[in-house]
């Protein structure tokens, strides 16, 4: 199982997020990437935490910040890739995999197919920000900044087009060892197809490894201490 980290990118700089709503500055993307590479972090997901309103200008500026980084660590990128125009801007980035969220919810086959042609099926990840309320599963639909029932999703479409599905526990985002295990079973996908994010800690990692998940993405904690990644790997 891969042990990765999430870096949230906002206005060309990294931020930390707590419980999906509180944001704190973290610093330069290059410095964060350098540290994670030195710690031999298996992969980094760079996410733009956009909700509802986003502009192509803001997207372009963030893309330029990513374009400038020098790294030898695998990167996946997502957050606001909504049209072919956005996809076009991604050329020549140091990125191997693309993360789509709203486009999977709206079944934007044209966009996802184009991305598949350019990057390959192995490069397509679907991110589902999930919240459980009264035992019911909801997915955050970023384009419209609202929660929708998981029943509204075409799970077979996601299964067919996404190489991996990132399940992001938004209630426990930024917290330690609090990932809601119920989320992992909410989509009836095979565990090796799933990447877990939000509330990841050592205990979660032990459990995830036993279950055979593809990867876990540690959020803020990955950069709090020098040996964090190493400790998570040996959890």
């Amino acid at each position, binding site marked *: 199982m891969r042990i990765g980290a999430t870096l949230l990118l906002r206005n060309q700089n990294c931020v930390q997020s707590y419980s999906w709503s509180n944001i704190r500055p973290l610093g330069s993307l290059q410095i964060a990437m350098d540290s994670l590479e030195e710690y031999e972090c298996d992969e980094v997901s760079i996410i733009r935490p956009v909700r509802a309103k986003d502009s192509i200008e803001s997207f372009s500026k963030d893309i330029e910040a990513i374009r400038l980084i020098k790294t*030898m660590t*695998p*990167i996946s990128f997502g957050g606001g890739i909504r049209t072919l125009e956005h996809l076009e801007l991604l*050329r020549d980035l140091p990125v191997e995999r693309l993360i789509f969220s709203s486009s999977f919810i709206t079944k934007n086959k044209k966009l996802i197919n184009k991305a598949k*042609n*350019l990057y*390959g099926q*192995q490069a397509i990840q679907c991110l589902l920000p999930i919240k459980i309320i009264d035992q019911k599963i909801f997915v955050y639909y970023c384009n419209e900044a609202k929660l929708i029932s998981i029943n509204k999703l075409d799970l077979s479409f996601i299964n067919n087009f996404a190489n991996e599905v990132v399940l992001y526990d938004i209630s426990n985002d930024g917290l330690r060892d609090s990932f809601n295990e119920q989320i992992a079973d909410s989509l009836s996908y095979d565990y090796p*197809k799933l990447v877990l994010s939000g509330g990841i800690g050592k205990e979660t990692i032990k459990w995830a490894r036993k279950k055979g998940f593809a990867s876990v993405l540690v959020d803020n904690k990955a950069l709090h201490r020098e040996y964090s990644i190493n400790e998570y790997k040996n959890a």
Partner: protein
Amino acid sequence: MKVNIIDLGSGNIRSLKNWIEKANITASCINNINDLDAEIIILPGVGEIGSYMKRLKRESFDKAILNHVKNGGRLIGICLGFQIMSIFSEESGGVKGLGLIKAETKRLKGNISHNEWEPLLLRKDSMTNQSFNSTEKLSRKTVLKGRVFYNHEYGVINKDSKAFTIPISSKLKQYTGLFVKDKIIGIQFHPEKSQITGKNLISMIL
């Protein structure tokens, strides 16, 4: 030494350039066959083989690569760029490759996706009967032990007994992770994203 990286407008060309430059070697990205001028060509590749092959042919890079190898130039294929060197790939409903190596590209057994880090142990002396090794000896390093990053759904099955190969892993031993034959190197993993091992590999093979 100069390196040309074929740029067909997709994938992480920038990462490859960064990787090559870690060995203090100048690399240029080429999108027109008339600009090819290096002893080593890197054929990168991400994407779907059908669409990639179409772009390669449209820009006449297929013939240019074959000529480069025929004229004694060195060629490094990475990931899809490695698969495309084979005779045939099952992907995209079946695509004829460049036929530079006696190998076929097939869907990984069990229809799995292999997105993992795997250990790599490479001894330079085990490649001595291949002519790829540079005479410039940029590195004295002879043993490379580390880990490399894979992200693929198709794998190359080598059929050339004279080639030097390293399997992907014990679980995927029928598929080739590293291939060296004469002036051709095929790499299924992403050396440009394999951190310190990738950095060591480039100075070892060039």
